[in-house]
């Protein structure tokens, strides 16, 4: 993966009549990366993807692919290929004919077309399926054919609009891993549209989180999870506890806070977002797995708060506890891995909860 942008989005905006779908998107997508557009329904993900593909024209701004402006260039002359949500497999053609569809215009010799098709089919694990009719395929197989049909064109960028949403949970999880591995082995840039945050975290090198026609944050999965820029991003990605807080001081060492639920703390400067106005901090976030129940009397942590279990949810490998800390009303959620010889605590149990300054996320 290089730092060189394969796609540059400059102030890309789109309106449908009076509906503003996108308000001026700026982003660089790097060559060879797996980039996801993540956001709730109606935030404009599909619209952005379709504009990159060339199915819609931006009402403002510019899309640059591989250094060339795409203004006025229709979809059939762009170095992008799309995997549709419905897969759009041509029903009157066989699997091999579907994959070969785009090669026809390249005027390759017949043997070469056959070679390319076979290569693409083996890439998606469908060797030997070339002669099948479209309606003889399962959902997962159709998805692979759609992918092979795009890959055989050797595009600079593959665009995928919720390609896994039609599959059942098990198959979806399997395809997430496969798709990611395939992308890494061939090194082509993938742009994936999804509203499933877990899917985006598992598959992507970087994720753009979108809300209502704007990009709220672009970061790696870990960056997004650990350092969300806003409460909205934080609650969209995973589970986040929001706690009231008050700034008591600021120095080179960091920001000192009084968090009623947890106690007093100084968040180290390295964990304070650049340009944050410390005095405007009204709440902080902490992930469930960053809080630990200290089951053993002798166990200690960087800091400890006292609390009472109000309810529990058992997930097999994990147990989620709701705990009211330091006699505050709103309980926090914390997760503990279940281990042998440790049973789930009943509601009403008094517990000690360990936590640390570095797990605290500051929000303006």
């Amino acid at each position: 993966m290089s730092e060189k942008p394969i796609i540059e989005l400059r102030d890309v905006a789109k309106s449908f009549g009076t509906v503003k779908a996108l308000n001026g998107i700026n982003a660089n997508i790097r060559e060879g990366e797996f980039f996801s557009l993540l956001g709730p329904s109606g935030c404009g993900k599909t619209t952005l993807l379709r504009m990159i593909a060339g199915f819609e024209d931006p009402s403002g701004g510019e899309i640059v692919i591989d250094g060339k402006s795409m203004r006025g260039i229709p979809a059939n002359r762009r170095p992008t290929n799309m995997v549709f949500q419905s897969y759009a497999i041509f029903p009157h053609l066989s699997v091999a004919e579907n994959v070969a569809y785009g090669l026809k215009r390249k005027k390759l010799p017949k043997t070469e077309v056959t070679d390319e098709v076979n290569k693409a089919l083996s890439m998606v694990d469908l060797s030997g399926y070339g002669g099948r009719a479209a309606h003889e395929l399962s959902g997962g197989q159709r998805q692979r054919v759609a992918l092979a049909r795009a890959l055989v064109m050797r595009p600079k960028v593959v665009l995928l609009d919720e390609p896994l949403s039609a599959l059942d949970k098990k198959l979806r999880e399997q395809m997430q891993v496969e798709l990611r591995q395939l992308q890494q082995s061939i090194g082509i840039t993938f742009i994936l549209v999804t509203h499933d945050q877990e899917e985006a975290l598992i598959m992507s090198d970087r994720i753009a989180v979108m809300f209502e026609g704007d990009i709220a944050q672009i970061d790696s999965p870990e960056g997004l999870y650990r350092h969300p820029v806003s409460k909205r991003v934080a609650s969209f990605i995973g589970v986040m506890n929001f706690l009231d807080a008050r700034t008591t001081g600021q120095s080179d060492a960091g920001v000192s806070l009084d968090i009623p639920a947890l106690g007093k703390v100084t968040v180290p400067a390295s964990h304070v977002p650049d340009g944050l106005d410390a005095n405007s901090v009204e709440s902080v976030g902490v992930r469930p797995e960053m809080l630990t129940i200290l089951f053993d009397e002798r166990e200690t942590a960087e800091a400890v708060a006292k609390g009472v279990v109000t309810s529990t949810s058992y997930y097999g490998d994990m147990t989620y506890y709701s705990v009211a800390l330091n006699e505050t009303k709103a309980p926090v959620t914390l997760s503990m891995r279940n281990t042998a010889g440790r049973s789930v605590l009943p509601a009403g149990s008094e517990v000690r909860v360990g936590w640390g300054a570095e797990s605290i996320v500051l929000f303006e």
Partner: protein
Amino acid sequence: MRPGRAKKLWNWLAVYAFLYMVFLYAPVILLPLFAFNESTIIAFPLSGFTTEWFTVLVNNDALARSVENSLFVAVTTAVVSTLLGACAARAAARYRFPGQKGVIGFIMLPLVLPEIIVAVALLVVLMQLGFSLSLWTVIAGHILICMPYSIAILSSAFQGLDRNLEEASFDLGETNWGTFKRVIFPLVLPGVISSLLITFTISLDEFIIAFFLTGTDATLPVYIWSQLRFPSKLPSIMALGTILLVLSIILLILAEWFRQRSAKRQGVEAAAGGFI
């Protein structure tokens, strides 16, 4: 309801169904029966087997001309109404425009309008405009009544067409024309053939409009009607009717077969939207 009563009801229903079939198809069966009957009088008892009436047909110039006229009218009608029907069906399936429902409704109206009204109205208008009657005026009338059928058949073909298929083709480097040739046309082709066959059949045996709007050139049904005045010609008319009957049945079966194949290709329930 007691089982005995239910059984009685079923019996009555069976009788009803039987009588219905007799009234519907008995006259049709009479046609070939008398076509092969030796006597010139159309009455029972049958006298003997002959194929004479069919040979009479072959040597009849006026009949040959009317067959020619009818084929010309039917083929032209089928091609034009299918072409126009395809445009309308495509527009209805793909685009939304103001007054769309009204426009489509108007095009479908001849389906429920009595043909005699269409025929008389057209005649009056054409005369007022100073057109002379010819096969072309018949064709115009036939297109009018065939359009609803071709739109209905082609609508289901175009509606079943997934928009993404066109985009996928375009995305894979194909042009608009190439997309039409390689994706749209093959997928709606069975519908097109089915529409051609049905409109051809409708036009071929249409009488009222042809009778009102034709000039000196008679179409086949008009010719047949004119011959009914001569009792001696009746048996050969029966023979002609037999041939037409067989042809019509073959055409309609073909049309339905193509329509179902089209539906199957697109994964749609074949039972929906059929005429037969």
